[in-house]
């Protein structure tokens, strides 16, 4: 089932907003206002298709890369950026930085160790199951993260307990400097699904509609109490591992990067929507314009926010 036009537009808009946020961060980075790095999600905005099938009362655990999770769930880019600046108005009051959270939107925080969020996702789903609710948990992870033992322990547990959880692998072929071929015995992370006796599916991660359709099915399954699934999105990170200049470059074949740039998920989706008449050239312009404006407002908010007072360092350890 195709999403309705309205939802298609929402998906497109969130992709554009995600990209606009990335471009904002990239433009700010040289100014030194973001003291640590940022892991850019440029090129992986197909992920929006997975997020768009979720309800407000669903939970999401997410990776170190990109802001799409936040923007799709309703977070304010101004507060995200303020957090990256270390300002008091940020979602973590400046304490978390790029290990962002937005508690109200059930985005509880990034794990500093990759693979650390997998058990947390299991716990969220356990809570849902014990209470007999029909929320689901969507847990994103990278191909590199699939090599962590916690990923496996957690997948096994979700299957044994039939938890309402959708594992979504963002397979961009690289973990830092390391190509999958150097680190990973399975070509497709979806192969793990079979091992853990759950449905697995591989989709073109840069085809947002395919992503949406596959995850929608998995969400429905989980919501109905039929247990977890694993969806693997084949995608690519266009930027370097991290923004901020502290990481080596030049380890990838530039042709590989160029080839993937041609498969830009936003451009592809735009072409589809234009050809189907869901979107007009004017709307394209307008959506882009609004996204840029939103990010300008965000930047102003972050710039004008105050740093936290020193006393804040001594609060919030215990509830």
């Amino acid at each position, binding site marked *: 089932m195709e999403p309705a036009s309205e939802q298609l537009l929402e998906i497109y808009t969130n992709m554009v907003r995600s990209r606009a946020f990335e471009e904002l961060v990239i433009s700010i980075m040289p100014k030194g206002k973001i003291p640590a790095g940022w892991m850019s999600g440029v090129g992986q905005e197909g992920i929006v298709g997975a997020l768009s099938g979720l309800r407000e009362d669903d*939970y999401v*655990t997410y990776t170190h890369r990109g802001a799409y999770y936040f923007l799709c769930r309703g977070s304010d880019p101004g507060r995200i950026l303020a957090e990256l600046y270390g300002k008091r108005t940020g*979602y*973590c*009051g*400046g*304490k*978390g930085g790029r*290990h962002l*959270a937005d*508690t*109200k939107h059930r985005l*509880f*925080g990034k*794990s*500093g*160790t990759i693979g*650390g969020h*997998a*058990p*947390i*996702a*299991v*716990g*969220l*789903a*356990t*809570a*849902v*199951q*014990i*209470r007999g609710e029909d929320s689901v948990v969507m847990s994103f992870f990278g191909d590199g993260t699939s090599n962590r*033992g*916690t990923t496996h*322990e*957690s997948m*096994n*547990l979700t299957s*044994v*307990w039939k938890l309402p959880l959708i594992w979504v692998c963002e397979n961009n072929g690289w973990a830092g400097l390391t190509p999958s071929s150097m680190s990973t015995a399975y070509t497709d992370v979806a192969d793990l699904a079979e091992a853990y006796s759950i449905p697995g599916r591989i989709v073109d991660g840069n085809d947002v509609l395919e992503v949406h359709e596959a995850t929608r099915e998995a969400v429905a399954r989980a919501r109905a109490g039929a247990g977890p699934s694993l969806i693997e999105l084949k995608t690519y990170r266009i930027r370097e591992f991290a923004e901020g200049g502290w990481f080596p470059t030049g380890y990838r074949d530039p042709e590989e990067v160029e080839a993937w740039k041609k498969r830009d998920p936003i451009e592809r989706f735009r072409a589809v929507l234009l050809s189907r008449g869901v979107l007009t050239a004017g709307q394209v312009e307008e959506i882009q314009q609004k996204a840029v404006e939103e990010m300008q407002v965000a930047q102003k908010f972050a710039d004008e926010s105050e740093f936290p007072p020193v006393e804040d360092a001594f609060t*919030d*350890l*215990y*509830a």
Partner: protein
Amino acid sequence: MRTIGFMQAMNEALQEEMRRDPSVYVLGLGVHYSGTHPSVTAGLIDEFGAARVRSTPVSEAAVAGSCVGAALAGMRPVAQFSLADFVFCALDEILCKAGKWRYTHGAEGGMSLPIVFLETIGGYVSAASEHSQSPLALYAHAPGLKIAVPTTPYNAKGLLKTAIRDNNPVVFFPHKRLMGAQGPVPEEDYTVPFGQAEVRREGRDVTVVATSYMVTLALEAASKLEEQGVDTEVIDPLTLEPLDTERIVESVRKTGRRVVVDEDTERCGVGAEIGMQVVERAFDALKAPIQRVSNPNLPVPYSRPLEQAVLPSREKIEKAIQQTLAA
């Protein structure tokens, strides 16, 4: 008052808190067991069912981390790990996630992490280096975790209830050698507060601070020394975070001499910390250097005579007390 066993006391705490609050659930290896063999979780499954009494695979990291997730979603998980030794497989989850999550991410929205990690500690049972650890300092060193170290059936039950009701992660450490203890435990609901040391024996000459099974050994040493006219005060902190430094300092101000007994390895141990806190706050009152009785930084060996050589004993505590008195 009726007398019950240490494990039954813990079992009752779990049962009563699960009745009181539907968000409490237990998980761990073999917790589905419902037979008559004594166990902390025995029979819970009969009353609360498999949804709230969840038997897990041998996946300590996933189990510990899942508690963080469940707590974030409003539950109160109690994870039974049996030995603390096994939880080295889940330290990222406990030290870096449970302990730090609220501080790092929880500035708004009232985030709390009410979790209890049950980890049995201790040697003295010939279980060798990987089944005999008492890693109290490892957890005490990490921010954001509360630490309960019960010593009697009474305080085991009361502290466990406090732990379950606390809105923060609590690591709860029963000791292998105390699990068989019997003691008076009221039928009615009660709790034992965190951060209030118990004076297990009053005395004028020397203060001994001891935790867990070390309290038993310290009391034995104190009795022995009484025959020689030495009047020993034995303080059992019950929780290491929060730590009742005040009570300890007060005692040292009275006696001027202190011994700290800790089964854990000595270097950067609980004994060093309690020692330094006394130095920082009651330096002027100290009549002699503080003595530590602890494992001299060795793995715990299997063979009985070797294990005795490495771990604290009544005799070693006696000797330390005599030394501090002689100094």
